[in-house]
């Protein structure tokens, strides 16, 4: 049985276990003088039996499915002739891939040599064996669970408490998933980045002025040529983020101020959801719009002014990212502005300040920490934005301060390095993880500072 069928079978067994456990407990109840003489309601005995049936078997199934590929690969490599085993890692990977292809189709098998066919046969044999053991183990565990669970049903057995204990543990484990995800991100980018830094010194990466990984694609020259200086990428990212913030901060802030302080409630109720649409549009749509509409528009306008504009100018990508971030900034600013106590506004009005003066001289200064926090979060978004720059910014790493020129960004390079058919271990792909590490660390710092500032700000007025 494959894992999916096994899973379905297991669920079916668990339902049976529930019914059986409930029935058993009802029988016990009749013997001891009615359901109210049982410690728990009959369904809890059912739940308990079902848990005994399903949980251990499920854990085994999950572990098995996770570990099987790795174990089988090892076994397979061990069975191969020595000269194949000694191949470099990347070629060995290709070899194993071949074997899997042969196993998958008869056409491929006709062209393969005997060693490969033998290995394939061995692989298939191992896979069958593994599947058989897995099925047997899981089913035995499930049945044993039913028997064990049912045998524990008695008048005084605290079924509800046991079930609730398991529930609490499951809840707790689920809440740990966020931590697991963070650890997963850190480990995955860190390990690959460290491997990259073995080939390319950290110093060269962080402070190198030239980025041209495409020239490093000679398989026997791992990491020895090609330039991995990331400074042009950092500068490009910063330029596009700066353009975006120049658009988003004033517009977003003024939008929030106007809607929260000046607009009629009717207009506010209409305008807010309409602007929220901007935040809900997928970034790939913005990317398409930036590349096919905004960029040509800017180019035409620039040319009519006699300016040379690149067809993938930083300006186009920056503007579109900026507009995308407007609702983000305006809703965060709206929150912090509304957190400024009404008494501040009244105090200012009572001294004869106009509404605009109150906003500029009392509300904005009072809300400033919160607004700064929101802007930091927005910067982190602009830096991490991918699709718009992938579609509308350039690929060539150029160091320029001209926003009409094409620049490239960290995220663009990550996508470029990792899409297409690359071997997993080449320095090119590893470079993507090093860039990912930089991106993660930068945004993490920004986010942590921003979240801290906003939290402190809120506490001040609570």
């Amino acid at each position, binding site marked *: 049985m494959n894992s999916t069928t096994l899973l379905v079978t297991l669920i079916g067994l668990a339902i049976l276990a529930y019914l059986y456990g409930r029935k058993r407990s009802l029988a016990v109840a009749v013997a001891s003088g009615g359901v109210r003489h049982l410690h728990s309601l009959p369904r809890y005995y059912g739940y308990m039996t079902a848990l005994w049936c399903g949980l251990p078997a499920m854990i085994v199934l999950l572990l098995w499915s996770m570990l099987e590929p790795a174990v089988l690969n090892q076994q397979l490599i061990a069975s191969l002739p020595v000269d194949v085993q000694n191949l470099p890692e990347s070629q060995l990977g290709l070899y194993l891939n071949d074997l899997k292809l042969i196993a998958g189709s008869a056409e491929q098998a006709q062209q393969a040599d005997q060693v490969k066919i033998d290995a394939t046969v061995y692989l298939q044999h191992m896979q069958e064996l593994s599947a058989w053991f897995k099925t047997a183990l899981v089913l035995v565990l499930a049945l044993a669970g039913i028997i064990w669970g049912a045998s524990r049903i008695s008048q005084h057995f605290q079924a509800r408490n046991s079930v609730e204990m398991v529930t609490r543990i499951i809840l707790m484990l689920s809440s740990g998933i966020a*931590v697991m995800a963070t650890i997963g991100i850190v480990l995955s980018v860190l390990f690959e980045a460290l491997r990259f830094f073995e080939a390319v010194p950290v110093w060269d990466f962080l402070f190198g002025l030239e980025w041209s990984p495409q020239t490093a694609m000679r398989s026997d020259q791992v990491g020895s040529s090609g330039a991995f200086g990331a400074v042009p990428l950092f500068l490009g990212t910063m330029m596009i983020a700066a353009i975006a913030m120049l658009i988003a901060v004033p517009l977003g802030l003024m939008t929030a101020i106007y809607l929260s302080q000046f607009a009629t409630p009717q207009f506010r109720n209409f305008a807010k959801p309409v602007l929220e649409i901007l935040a*809900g549009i997928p*970034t790939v749509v913005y990317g398409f719009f930036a590349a096919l509409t905004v960029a040509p528009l800017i180019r035409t306008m620039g040319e009519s002014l006699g300016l040379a504009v690149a067809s993938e100018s930083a300006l186009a990508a920056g503007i579109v990212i900026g507009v995308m971030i407007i609702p983000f900034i305006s809703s965060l600013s709206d929150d912090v502005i509304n957190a400024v106590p009404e008494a501040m506004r009244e105090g200012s009005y009572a001294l004869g300040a106009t509404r605009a003066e109150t906003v500029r001289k009392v509300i904005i200064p009072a809300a400033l920490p919160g607004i700064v926090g929101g802007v930091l979060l927005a910067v982190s978004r602009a830096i991490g934005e991918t699709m718009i720059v992938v579609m509308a910014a350039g690929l060539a790493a150029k160091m320029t301060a001209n926003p009409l020129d094409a620049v490239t960004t960290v995220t663009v390079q990550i996508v470029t390095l990792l899409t297409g058919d690359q071997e997993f271990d080449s320095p090119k792909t590893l470079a*993507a993880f090093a860039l*990912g590490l930089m991106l993660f660390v930068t*945004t*993490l710092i920004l986010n942590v500072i921003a979240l801290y500032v906003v939290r402190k700000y809120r506490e001040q007025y609570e």
Partner: protein
Amino acid sequence: MSNKMSHHRSNIEQVRHSLKKRHRQEKRFILLGKLSVLTGFLFLAFLLTDIGIKAWPAFQQHWIQLDVTFDAQILDVEAPADEAALKKGNYRGVLKKSLYAMFPDVSARRDKKALFKLISSGAEYQVRDILLADPRKLGTTQQIWVLADDDVERFLKEPALRESQQSDRRIKDNQVAWLDQLSGQGRIESQWNWAFLTSGDSREPEQAGIAGALRGTMLTILVTLAMSFPLGLAAAVYLEEFAPQNRWTDLIEINVNNLAAVPSIVFGLLGLAVFISFFGVPRSAPLVGGMVLTLMTLPTIIIASRASLKSVPPSIRDAALALGASKVQTVFQHVVPLAMPGILTGTIIGMAQALGETAPLLMIGMVAFIVDIPQGITDSATVLPVQIYLWADSPERAFMAKTSAAIIVLLLFLVTMNLLAVVLRKRFERKW
């Protein structure tokens, strides 16, 4: 006393003096605010109209009617032919023959080639399928509508092209004459393009559709929903109802808030390094896509669910506990059901985010060109946003309309989901 009075007077004069300027400033400030809001509106309107206009042609398709003779000789099949033989027939030859028959004057090799270019390269499969469906048509002549080529398509949709210089367009003057002749005979027809929704991807723009991407999206979102909803709900219930106030809980909280702000592409790197390379989950499949999107949407669901759980008043909990319900029973029989509308709203919003996400899926290989419609969660697949990205990158101009049309379909889905969330909130919102 009178000194005091005059002091007041002079103050009033001074204030009055500055008033005009201050009110002008106020007006300017408000104007700036209005302009900001207007900018947002205009940009949104511009974006939607632009995409709408670009998408319109993709919903129309031109067909050309040909008199096709299923000549066994040209097809190179024996008269009572079996299916396998029919499949291998030379349908291109049949089509060529029928076109040349319609325009007997065309004799030069180059012109013949240009003539054949009027119809889609997929037409031969279309014709083949007709014969396969009914082999008795072998030897007969049928009137068949075949798809026009994408260049013809564009020429027919943009009247301005006809006026332009020959060198500026892909349809040359001789082709224009043929097309005019065909349409004079009523052999050109425009139809609503249903195939866009029912066929898979293709290198030929006139045949490309989003069915594969839609199925991929559906499978991916199902995986995401199946994993993120229970996990998110469980995590939120634990953090809000059971977790003790300690460092571990603080750590989880910080992590959840921070994950919500991590760039999506980083989740793609995680998926590639951990799920694909380490655990060996199949690449390009909805399963791994759903796993990555689950991690991305979890913070949204957890934060929304916690807010919803928090809004259930403590008196409900007290009431249940006072009746002798256990803590777990109280939470699952009273608190969670009452908080459910908010939790579902958060989940739908999370799913809408996942639906529009592109970048992390590029990292895990859901970017491959896939013609077949995926059948299961471990088949190679692509999703709608990635399809949009792929088409946007294609050089053929006709793909621009296809891209815009796909965007409109995607936006319709998002609008529907958000409306659902709004309705849910409005309908079940409870004020305590």
